[in-house]
């Protein structure tokens, strides 16, 4: 408790001190920025609801500085990230609603013709801050073109979380780097009575990230580059059989896990490896009674499969402006301001590793190195593939993920409800309807 209060106080002091400089910078920036907000401009923004309070505090400070420097009032509304998409779709369709939407990965691709062209903002930021990572370009640009329809602000990473002592005891001084070694690891961990587990219930975050990693790491794919469904393949079958073996070494009950279950089980010493954001570590560090868990845990990349390169899926948060806005220049100014080093560095530090940048220059932010256990999350944006895999990142990919098609295919095989072939057929049938022209 004491620790919490102290760190909060420190944070507050830092923020207060930062306040003045933030404002000075904001004023200077407003005078030189390429985008001049329209006179009397006012903006409203719908954003995903924060996971960490400190991130939101830093964000509000950033917005206040923008308002002071430019006179543009910004009204922020927060919704759980799953609810941003339906609201944005309705707004795009009816032509009225918030000027800016900040949501989940494929959001701008649901209505690309309704988004303000952000090419100038993206080029400005890209040139200034070491360029955009590849996956961010795919999320930000209109499919098959060079026009940017959104600015990819950040990722929320999902990586392996594991206990150090238990892994050492199982004979692994570092976390396995390949899928074969990982299977051995899971087996040894289970034999020692320190098993782990991946969520196989309808867990939109943790469930979807690991099954896509598994599918892709064996060369399986939902669709090809032309959005043709190719799920029913020998590669997918290999991935399913691998997952079934892995499932045997997991703690019983993972088939019912939602997003919160692995956090609970990890923090209660019930499981010793799982996939997650940095939230378990943050929760353990904040709780004095869980101190030994925080000290004894670490993070690692997902193991690499037979195809020989990383195949991770992380959550992307792009921001877009609707073309019905009366103040497109103000929207661009705000977005560019958010990602300028003086704001973005503070904001991403406040997020304590939950959020990862998409602009290469921010690799240098001390948030990634002051605690080495955060470092793997720095590379999340570089390692991430995009929703839909080889195919487009639009509405169809979003539907397939929301409908848990791949997740249910894995769960069907792992729990023994279906064999691999019939599970693939079921998924294929569903996907063909989702991806039909």
């Amino acid at each position, binding site marked *: 408790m004491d620790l919490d209060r102290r760190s909060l106080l420190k944070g507050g002091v830092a923020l207060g001190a930062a306040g003045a400089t933030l404002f000075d910078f904001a004023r200077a920036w407003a005078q030189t920025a390429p985008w001049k907000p329209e006179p009397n401009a006012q903006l409203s923004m719908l954003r995903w609801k924060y996971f960490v309070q400190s991130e939101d505090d830093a964000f509000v400070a950033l917005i206040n500085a923008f308002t002071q420097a430019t006179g543009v009032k910004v009204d922020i509304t927060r919704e759980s990230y799953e609810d941003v998409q339906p609201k944005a779709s309705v707004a795009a369709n009816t032509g009225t609603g918030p000027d800016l939407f900040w949501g989940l990965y494929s959001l701008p691709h649901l209505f690309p013709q309704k988004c303000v062209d952000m090419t100038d903002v993206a080029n400005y930021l890209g040139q200034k801050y070491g360029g955009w990572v590849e996956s961010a370009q795919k999320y930000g640009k209109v499919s098959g073109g060079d026009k940017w329809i959104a600015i990819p602000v950040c990722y929320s990473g999902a990586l392996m979380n594991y206990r150090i002592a238990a892994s050492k005891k199982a004979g692994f001084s570092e976390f396995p780097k390949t899928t074969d070694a990982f299977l051995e690891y899971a087996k040894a961990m289970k034999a020692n009575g320190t098993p782990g587990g991946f969520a196989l*219930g309808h867990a939109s975050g943790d469930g979807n990230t690991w099954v896509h990693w598994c599918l892709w790491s064996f060369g399986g794919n939902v669709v090809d580059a032309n959005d043709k469904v190719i799920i029913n393949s020998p590669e997918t079958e290999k991935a399913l059989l691998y997952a079934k073996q892995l499932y045997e070494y997991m703690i019983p009950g993972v088939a019912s896990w939602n997003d919160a279950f692995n956090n609970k089980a990890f923090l209660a010493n019930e499981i010793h490896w799982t996939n997650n954001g940095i939230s378990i570590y943050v929760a353990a560090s904040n709780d004095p009674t869980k101190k030994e868990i925080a000290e004894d845990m670490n993070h690692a990349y997902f193991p690499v499969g037979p195809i020989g390169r990383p195949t991770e899926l992380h959550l992307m948060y792009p921001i877009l402006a609707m073309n019905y806005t009366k103040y497109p220049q103000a929207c661009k100014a705000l977005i560019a301001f958010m990602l300028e080093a003086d704001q973005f560095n503070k904001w991403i530090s406040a997020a304590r590793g939950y959020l990862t940048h998409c602009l290469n220059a921010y690799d240098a932010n001390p948030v990634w190195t002051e605690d080495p256990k955060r470092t793997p999350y720095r590379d999340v944006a570089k390692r991430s593939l995009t929703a839909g895999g080889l195919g487009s990142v639009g*509405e169809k990919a979003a539907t397939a993920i929301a409908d848990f098609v791949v997740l249910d295919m894995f769960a069907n095989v792992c729990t023994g409800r279906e064999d691999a072939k019939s599970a693939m057929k079921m998924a294929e049938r569903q996907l063909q309807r989702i991806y039909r022209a």
Partner: protein
Amino acid sequence: MSDITAGTLRVQSSVREVSFWDRLRTNREWLGFWFMLPAAGFLLLFLAYPLGLGIWMSFTDARIGRSGSFIGLENYEWLLDDRSFVNATLFTITYTVVASVFKFAIGLYLAILLNRYIPFRAIVRAVILIPFIVPTVLSAIAFWWIFDPQFSIISWSLRKLGLMTGNIDFLGVPLHAQASVIFANIWRGVPFIAITLLAGLQTVPPSLYEAATLDGASPWQMFRHITYPLLTPIIAVVMTFSVLFTFTDFQLIWALTRGGPVNATHLMATLSYQRGILGGRLGEGAAIATAMVPFLLAAIMISWFGLQRRKWQHGGRDD
């Protein structure tokens, strides 16, 4: 005689002078129509229109944020061939039937028990209502912990008692998960039935029991020939409501399992939400929701016939 005729004539002529508007103004039915109009408007706007829109949508390929084009029965054809949908329908029926039977049996038993003289009756009656009062999501979270694969209180107790070594996988095995959610639904639904039946029991005149006692009737005979027949109308109503609520249940499943594991606990309502709102395919979601209507209509018809029987229950005749 002539006076009378003249009087009648005069009255008749004055009646003819009444304009259509005057007649309308004093017409009780016309007035009634206007009094009814706001209610009818509400019903049309908030019940008939959404229902009609939902049914129309089920014939289109509408997605969130954009109206689709008419595709006829395509959604239904696809669903008929969709194992998730067929399983969800079968499970919805099982869920409703099993839960309703148990809720009725336990509810009736509790009602009869509470109708007797027991100490602290008022408090016991209030306590019985708790599961019904607690918001569904809250009770679902309680069950979440009870059924947790690692932290379940049931597994923990059995382990501490030395009756088993591992944990029970309540929500991870399809059959266990189905039984668990049905159990949670029963727990939640019993108070409603118990309290309503208790109200019904209290309307049974004690004189009937006295007469039966004098005739030497056994408790079972009294229940079978007095309590049960007099309770039938209220049973019909309360069971209709219970069946409707159970069939359209959403919150409990969504909070507990989200339809998992592997879609084993999806009800039609949760599947409709997942496909229509989360997946964005409104047309297909609407088709799943519309497919619930025939079942609900059937439940209402049963209740309607149940209510009709009320007359002869009270010594009248059906006509």
